[in-house]
């Protein structure tokens, strides 16, 4: 079957450093992508999204890059803070529903 992303890996970064979380998607027909953050005991929260007609979008301290050629999505977090520690999911929307990747756990070391 089709899948988005990877099984749950862990990324450990030092506070203040930049973080890059990667995601691979398999359906070239997907036209909308979202990054979610899930803190322990909570539901996924929207961080940033991007449509397939763009290759970069910036938010506050976050940037999403989309490479449609290799079907790759990344989330960059600038100056990572302890509050950024969470599981991050990419999701693709193929018209009717969101399909989630396996998530990446981000751990921020003080």
């Amino acid at each position, binding site marked *: 079957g089709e899948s988005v992303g990877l*099984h*749950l890996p862990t990324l450990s970064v030092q506070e203040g450093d930049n973080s890059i979380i990667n995601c691979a998607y398999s359906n070239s027909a997907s036209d*909308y992508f*979202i990054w*979610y953050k*899930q803190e322990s*005991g*909570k*539901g*996924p*929260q*929207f961080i940033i*999204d991007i449509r397939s007609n763009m290759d970069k979008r910036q938010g506050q301290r976050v940037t999403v890059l989309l490479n449609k050629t290799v079907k790759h999505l990344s989330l960059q977090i600038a100056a990572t803070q302890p509050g950024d520690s969470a*599981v991050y*999911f990419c999701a693709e*929307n193929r*018209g*009717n*529903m*969101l*399909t*989630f990747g*396996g*998530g990446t756990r981000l751990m921020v070391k003080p």
Partner: protein
Amino acid sequence: DTAVSQTPKYLVTQMGNDKSIKCEQNLGHDTMYWYKQDSKKFLKIMFSYNNKELIINETVPNRFSPKSPDKAHLNLHINSLELGDSAVYFCASSQDRQGRAFFGQGTRLTVV
């Protein structure tokens, strides 16, 4: 103000029982969803409703039955609970089927 709220937050029950999880959204969205998150954090869609009509029903045992009394509510009823049903269930809503989804806090279901 909670945008998507689901109850209960925790549910512990015995095998064979029937239970329901309720979900309400006050965002005025047309589309609501149920997702299941397993112990490895994998999120999988179960159902999607648009304006009270079922539009997506993924491969889910028919012991799971969603019910949407109105656009703002989507409840999940589970019959004859099994150990493998233990998971966190998330309700979500979106303005339309192409938009971003807003999630509730989740219901941790433990079947013993």
